[in-house]
């Protein structure tokens, strides 16, 4: 193996995770994965593979969707997250950039960012971090009093990333960060995550359909299909794998563009129904 896979002890260890929605739909069927301290790990998979379900399970959000963990364990440095509330999980340093950004549209940029600090009590630290976010994304500083709904897609994603960083996470989970954004902005965001990973040792779990991008930044990857891990390995190995090339890298930009088109359609349908 060219890349050292486990730099140190795992931050996150998911073992044989089984998740069910509404006591009826099985979304994850025994998923296991590991994120080592300071590592960037990618989880790839097509629509409906169970990626977002995995994120919800780790961050304690299944209750919003009437979902439950039926089997397996999620360990954060050995501590079981399965029974914890979202608040407990966030205050232990796990925060996410949710799929579709999920900003608070009529709150200002600054209020959105502050929402990331709700589990913290250190006022000085919070305003210091706020300034740091404005340094990372100067455009957000200019718009701090504007309602989030008026931002462009890229700026909104910056707010979503900044909001998650305001929790001072040790593990950041990004659910389809690249979705619907121009390649330029996607690259800026990924570069920033890479920098935080390098400089602060932030561990990152990248959930992506954009396999090319994700495998460029991740050290290790898992491929999820209908609720199961069908393949995993160091990123370079996955990039060279024939099946991965065919299904995830084949069409290059085309693939990711068509995926997002499908997804947009699906979302619209969900809203209308």
């Amino acid at each position, binding site marked *: 193996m060219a890349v050292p896979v486990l730099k140190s002890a795992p931050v996150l260890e998911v073992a044989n995770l089984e998740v069910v929605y509404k006591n009826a739909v099985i979304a994850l069927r025994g998923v296991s994965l590991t994120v080592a301290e300071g590592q960037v790990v990618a989880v790839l998979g097509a629509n409906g593979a169970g990626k977002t379900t995995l994120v919800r399970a780790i*961050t*304690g*959000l299944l209750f*919003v969707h*009437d979902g439950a963990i039926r089997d397996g364990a999620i360990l954060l440095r050995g501590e079981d997250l399965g029974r914890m*509330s*979202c*608040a407990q*999980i*966030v*205050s232990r340093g796990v*925060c*996410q950039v*949710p799929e579709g950004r*999920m*900003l*608070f*549209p*009529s*709150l200002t940029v600054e*209020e959105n960012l*502050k*929402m*990331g600090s*709700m*589990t913290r009590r250190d006022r000085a630290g919070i305003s210091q971090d706020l300034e740091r976010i404005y340094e990372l994304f100067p455009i957000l500083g200019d718009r701090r009093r504007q309602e989030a709904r008026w931002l462009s897609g890229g700026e909104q994603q910056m707010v979503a990333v900044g*909001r998650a960083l305001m*929790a001072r996470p040790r593990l950041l989970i990004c659910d389809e960060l690249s979705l619907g954004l121009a390649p330029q902005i996607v690259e800026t965001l990924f570069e920033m995550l890479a920098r935080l990973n390098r400089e602060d040792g932030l561990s990152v779990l990248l959930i992506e359909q954009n396999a090319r991008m994700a495998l460029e930044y991740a050290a290790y990857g898992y491929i999820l299909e209908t609720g199961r891990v069908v393949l995993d390995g160091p990123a370079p190995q996955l990039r060279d794998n024939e099946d991965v090339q065919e299904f995830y890298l084949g069409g290059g930009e085309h693939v990711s563009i068509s995926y997002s088109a499908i997804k947009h359609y699906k979302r619209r349908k969900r809203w209308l129904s």
Partner: protein
Amino acid sequence: MDKFLILLLTGLTVGSIYSMVALGFVLVFKSTDVLNFAHGEFLMLGSYLALTFLVSWDLNIWISILIIAALICALGVGIHFGIMRPLIGQPLFSVVLVTIGIAIIIRAGLLIIYGPLERGRITQALPQSGFDVAGVPVPWVNMIMFVVAALSVLVFLLFFKMTRIGLQMRAVAENLEAAAAMGVSPNSVFATSWGIGAVMAAVAGVLYANYAPVIDLNLSAIGLRAFPAAMIGGLDSVGGAILGGLIVGVLEQLAAGYIGAEYRDVVAFGLMFVVLMVRPFGFFGKEDVIRV
């Protein structure tokens, strides 16, 4: 002209009470998605407790307001934890029926304790004299009622805009899942909304007991007035509820004064229908409330 001014001032006074009630109603709806049809009963409970505190026990009105607000606040929070929380995930319809059940229970409780006889308004707590504004007589009762209502709304707005919990309440109203993802406990936000809504109704109830022609079990109908107020503003808009309350109060008085007392309700609800036809989400509401 004098008549118009008098009607306008009276309308603003009554409207300020409607605003408070509509505000609480909208607040609970905004964060918990529950239409609380017992909201008018919270107000009526406040008025009856005022009878006990101010008339039977002859206590100071400001101390009484604080105690009564605390009691009804506890009731609201209790309803959230005891009744509403276990119902999370049930269809809106069942939840609404439950709030109607709560309304009936409060009403029955008041009937049992206070009896069916109507009482006169409370006259011993506030000065009964008045003063002139540009030749128009204004009773102190009206003035005090308006000022206290305005102060309550102002304090609430400051809380809503400036504090951490206020921010959490606004965030939960916009996107519950995202707020939870940031570590906000939806339950404590829901409970806070119920508590604040109840306090608003309680304070309005105590004030109104000094103004209402009579105190009886029809007082909860004020809750029904809050409904057009809330709908006119947009069911999910706090500012709209405040404005809606004032508009309904003023229009009601103008209709009663110029057309006839029996047109009061017609005007309030008529306006609601017109607004809902032109702007289904109210003047300040957001479109996604259509999910109701």
